[in-house]
């Protein structure tokens, strides 16, 4: 029995290490495995479009980053980001990615609103749930925490309408003036970026997040 158990543990982990695939509770432990050469950081985030109650404000709505897990527990900021990253994939180009992202945004908005109407949280009404991509330039000293750009990728409104911002942008600005402008001279031979969560162990970062 002991030999079988040892074989099970070695084979389980060995297979995952060999195949570089995850079969929980076995794993090949990929965290921080991919070398980070570029000094830019791109992260997906969930934004909420909510009414702007500021007196004298020009816009009737404002865009707020959803950072609190109280709106739809247990989805804290890190977890909803991971879910959105899993749905969106590398670039959200496929129909499947679009549908998966749309479903996540729609369900988040519905759960948020349902809980708000039951007064389970004190957030403002959500007009639209929007997936955005934030970009930072990594600086020595990690100064300037504010992202250098926030790019809308997809939104789902309260009436169910889906707005594919990324596709629209791609169609109208064919050559791209916008998103990855921070990378002054991207290497044409460079491999596409890894799936966003390969280096992200931040879920474990939040102490009581499990």
């Amino acid at each position: 029995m002991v030999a079988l158990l040892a074989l099970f543990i070695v084979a389980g982990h060995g297979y995952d290490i060999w195949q570089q695939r995850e079969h929980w509770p076995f794993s090949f432990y990929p965290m921080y495995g991919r070398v980070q050469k570029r000094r830019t950081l791109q992260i997906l985030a969930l934004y909420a479009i909510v009414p702007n109650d500021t007196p004298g404000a020009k816009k009737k709505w404002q865009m707020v980053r959803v950072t609190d897990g109280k709106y739809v527990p247990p989805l804290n900021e890190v977890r909803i980001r991971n879910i959105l990253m899993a749905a969106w994939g590398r670039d959200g180009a496929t129909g499947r990615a679009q549908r998966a992202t749309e479903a996540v945004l729609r369900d988040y908005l519905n759960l948020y609103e349902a809980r708000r109407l039951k007064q389970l949280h004190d957030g403002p009404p959500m007009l639209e749930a929007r997936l955005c991509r934030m970009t930072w330039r990594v600086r020595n000293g990690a100064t300037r925490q504010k992202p250098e750009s926030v790019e809308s990728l997809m939104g789902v409104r309260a009436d169910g309408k889906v707005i594919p911002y990324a596709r629209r942008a791609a169609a109208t600005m064919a050559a791209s003036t916008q998103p990855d402008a921070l990378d002054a001279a991207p290497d044409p031979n460079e491999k596409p970026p890894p799936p966003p969560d390969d280096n992200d162990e931040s879920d474990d970062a939040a102490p009581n997040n499990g």
Partner: protein
Amino acid sequence: MMQHQTTVESSLRRFWFGPQGAETLGFARLVFFALMIWFYFPLDYAPWGGLTPAFANRPLFAFRILHLPIVSETTLGILQFVWRASLVTACIGLFTRTSVIVAALLGFYVLGVQGNFGKVGHGEGILILAMCILALSRCGDAWSIDSLIRAFRSRDPIGQRNRPISGEYRWPIRMIWLLMSMIFLGAGITKLRWSGLDWITTDNLSTTILSHYYNQPVGNEWKSTIGIWIANHRTLCKVVAGLTILIEIGFPLAMFSRWARAVLVPSAFLAQVGIYVMMGVAFTQFMFVYVFWIPWDTLGRFVRRIAQRRGKYEMLYDGGCGLCKGVASVVVRLDVFGRVEPMDVVHRWKEIAARHPNLTREQCLTDMHVVRPDGVAVSRFIAYRNLAWALPVCWPILPLLYIPPIPSIADRIYQYVATHRHDAGCEIA
């Protein structure tokens, strides 16, 4: 050739089944589950059952092939309750085998559920596998209520001193070492396969540390001056990166070499603490498994030596009374410092009389007596209260035993039990 084969076989046998006391495994089990209780009790997993399928967009392989559904919030709440209860019973060692099996099986589900939502957590996998190993072991033979019940039933206080030694207590610990070694080895190989030596020789670590300060949940930000300082010293980052790979790849050596163990295990632990200090990434759950690397028996011997300098308590019990022998057996079992010497009044009276001429046999057979290290003899409830000083498990309640009217009530209970003990199966009056 034949001889070589025999040597390898005997080495393997010694590695897995070399004789070992039950204490290390039992105490490691207790600490391991206590840490799990501390970590997981404040967390509520039930709300995962209230989310829609759209969020569960990364189903775990195990959930997929076993066709495990994400159950409702209520059902998950019930499963979580049973799981927590099993953690408690596994920790205190009550129905240990069953408790650990339930803890492993339900833990697999309850902790696994969240892994279907976007990202799998790496802290839980090792816990599940460690619990599976413990479920197959005899980890409840020491430091458990089960062992106290067995001691009481044995009615053999002297026999409790002879703790069992067997290879059954060695292989579970070695198996957990193997598990941890595979994990570190996997992490090291993955880094080298994905990035090669670039992981060490480029500014990778510096960028990784700095990037992490941007990639943090609002309200739980982590910015460490030490982390920034290290990130700004590129050569130091390369040295740290090199050492990290070395520790990870070399970790399996810790299984076989005492020297490697003394270096690699604390290094890996400190490396994980270092990641927390630099980046705020905590490997809390993962770190629970380090308790199986601690030589608790050696530490125990050291503490026992110090504790025994404070003298011994002689416990004089009625060796003709089943109840008295049962209680004395439990006391000896709880006496982890070896400060209580059980003395059977029926069979060792001559020795007792020689040591303590002021005591009479009748007195000692009527009431339980304890002779303190200072030579003073006390009896009845006071005797038990004095014994409590020698038994660490009693220390939390020790102050209560001095608060009136607890001593008088306890003494009456003692008197009632003592006068009725012969009705409950004592061999002689």
